[in-house]
């Protein structure tokens, strides 16, 4: 019986969603302790209220970004730090087209569908730009995406002519607000929808297998006929596109395009979400659900920190510390030290690392 119990425990702890769920649980616990009515949900004026509703709502853009970041991370072992800037660019393109170039408008000057498609196209192009640099020119992902990280907001500023462009149209606010008659905030639907869409894509294509293959062993991938350049390129385009979607949602919330602030610091959150989701930042096997859970965890963490009266300016400190801790724990060198430390405490117990014999 004991061995059965032991193996169930092992199966639970070894599951790839164990780590992200534990992190989420810890953060939720911290929240409940700080704010006892954290889980209280009420309906007021036809709309849901409550801390937990807020967390799930605000995490929507992050969830969408995290999906793209997971794919990029898995396929190329590096991260795309331009996603925040791409969000700003997408928002800028959309709002400018809707306002017809004016700084503010109260009616669509051009069809909404045109603005949205243009914004998504531009963000996909940004992704393609990154993709060419990383996949084709083999430039380190973080260095390549550094270019748009800096230039992106400048481009967004140029598009909005240095102003914050407002679109004061009720229907524009829906994406970031509420569908009339629906108590659930729309961004939640977008996030869920994106997750569902990507999962469908993964079901009806070989995306997961190809990305993991390329990320785990690119020379073996080549031998079995996979084109790593193409696969990595595609992940960057997807990441850019998803950043565009997130940018549109963010823009809809504030019914404007604020090139300076949309998506600010979200790239860090996205990377954190991927890491918290149990995914190795060095690439390979990935779990989308893990990253999604990680995204909600980060948002819940942000809420905890706000509850502790830490302002948004100061948040980055805590996030930085968490990232460092996770990355250190994931590093092979640290694991080596840890294992040899455990060896010293319990000699002979732990499995010693295999020396690789070569002839």
């Amino acid at each position, binding site marked *: 019986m004991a061995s059965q119990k032991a193996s169930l425990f092992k199966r639970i702890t070894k599951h790839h969603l164990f780590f992200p769920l534990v992190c989420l649980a810890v953060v939720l616990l911290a929240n409940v302790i700080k704010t006892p009515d954290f889980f209280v949900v009420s309906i007021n004026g036809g709309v849901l209220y409550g801390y937990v509703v807020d967390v799930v709502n605000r995490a929507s853009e992050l969830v969408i970004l995290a999906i793209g970041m997971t794919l990029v991370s898995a396929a190329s072992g590096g991260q795309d730090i331009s996603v925040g800037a791409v969000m700003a660019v997408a928002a800028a393109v959309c709002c400018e087209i809707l306002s017809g170039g004016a700084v503010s408008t109260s009616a669509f000057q051009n069809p909404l569908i045109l603005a949205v498609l243009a914004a998504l196209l531009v963000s996909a192009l940004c992704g393609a730009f990154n993709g060419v*640099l990383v996949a084709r020119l083999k430039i380190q992902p973080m260095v390549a995406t550094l270019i748009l990280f800096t230039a992106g907001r*400048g481009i967004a500023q140029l598009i909005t002519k240095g102003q914050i462009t407002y679109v004061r149209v009720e229907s524009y606010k829906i994406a970031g607000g509420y569908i009339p008659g629906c108590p659930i905030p729309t961004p939640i639907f977008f996030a869920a929808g994106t997750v569902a869409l990507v999962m469908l894509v993964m079901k009806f294509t070989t995306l997961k297998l190809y990305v993991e293959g390329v990320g785990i062993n690119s020379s073996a991938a080549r031998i079995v006929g996979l084109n790593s350049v193409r696969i990595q390129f595609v992940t960057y385009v997807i990441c850019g596109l998803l950043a565009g979607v997130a940018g549109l949602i963010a823009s809809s919330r504030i019914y404007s395009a604020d090139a300076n602030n949309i998506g600010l610091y979200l790239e860090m959150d996205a*990377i954190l979400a991927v890491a918290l989701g149990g995914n190795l930042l060095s690439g390979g096997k990935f779990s989308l659900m893990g990253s999604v859970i990680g995204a909600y965890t980060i948002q819940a963490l942000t809420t905890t920190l706000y509850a502790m009266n830490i302002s948004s*300016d*100061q948040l980055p400190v805590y996030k*930085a*510390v968490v990232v460092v801790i996770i990355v*250190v724990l994931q590093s092979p060198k640290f694991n080596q030290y840890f294992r040899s430390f455990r060896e010293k405490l319990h000699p002979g117990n732990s499995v010693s690392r295999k020396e690789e014999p070569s002839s």
Partner: protein
Amino acid sequence: MKKKKQLSDTSFLLMVTVGLFILMYAAGMIVFADKGFAKPQMFLNLFISNAGLIVISCGLTLVMITGGIDISVGSVTGLVAMASAYQMEVNGSGAYTALALSLLIGLAFGVVQGYLIAYLDIQPFIITLAGLFFGRGMTAVISKEMISVKNETFLAWAKYKIYLPVGTTNKRGVFQPAYIYPTVIVALLVLIAVAVMLKYTRFGRRLYALGGNQQSALMMGLNVRRTKFYAYTLNGFLVGLGGFLFFLNSCAGFVEQAKGLEMDAISASVIGGTLLSGGVGNPVGTLFGVLIKGAISSLITTQGTLSSWWVRIALSSLLCFFIVLQSVIASRKKKSM
């Protein structure tokens, strides 16, 4: 037998950089002559505005030679300014204390980041990205409002003009000498010191070796970990110093200060001929990289109608161009081997 190269790739890249600067500046002198672009002071202003950046870029060049990178330099600069301002204005310390504090903060970042990168083998990008966020956040923790410096010693340092024998004669026939600030002297001294260190000390050559081929350096008996660690520590010190120089320009600490400075420093290094892959870099080239950035800034400001965001865009485009150029040269080399 390999073809004899007339010009090594690094010299080629450096020539492109210097040439680009001369081209830009000359163009500016011609196009904007009426707006005073041709005055010597204009040229010296490049140094004055960018003294801090010169020092910081030198540090970054060091780290990039080893094949690493540090994107926290901008936020550390902001932190240094805020901390120093706070120390002087709120805690009433003197300017020298502020200087010491700046150097210490820089060193602290250098030591922690250096340890994680050199001894735990963690990717420099993610560690210094965390450093970037840590620095930005800490700046806000210290104070959310801007702190202007009123400390007299500090302001004296900031405003002390050193006059030079060159200058312009204005319409009334009065000779107006050009001037620089002490920060420029410090920056140039640091530049020379770093250049000498890189060329004439074993430590400097070790940086190149380790950046060129880490495995080989290890097999040749070099202590790779320790060298890397020292590189980041030294960089931290230079960021502290450069940050202080930057602070002498702004005379205030505020939350968004020096945002994007890391991009300027990296761009300056890369445009100055430092290879992202490591093993190649030259502070003199970096200096020209900084001057190019300054020239772009001056040109756009003088032009007057273009938004200042164009500076960032122009710089990013140049960076992109040089990165791609480096990549093309590297792959051509591989093919011919």
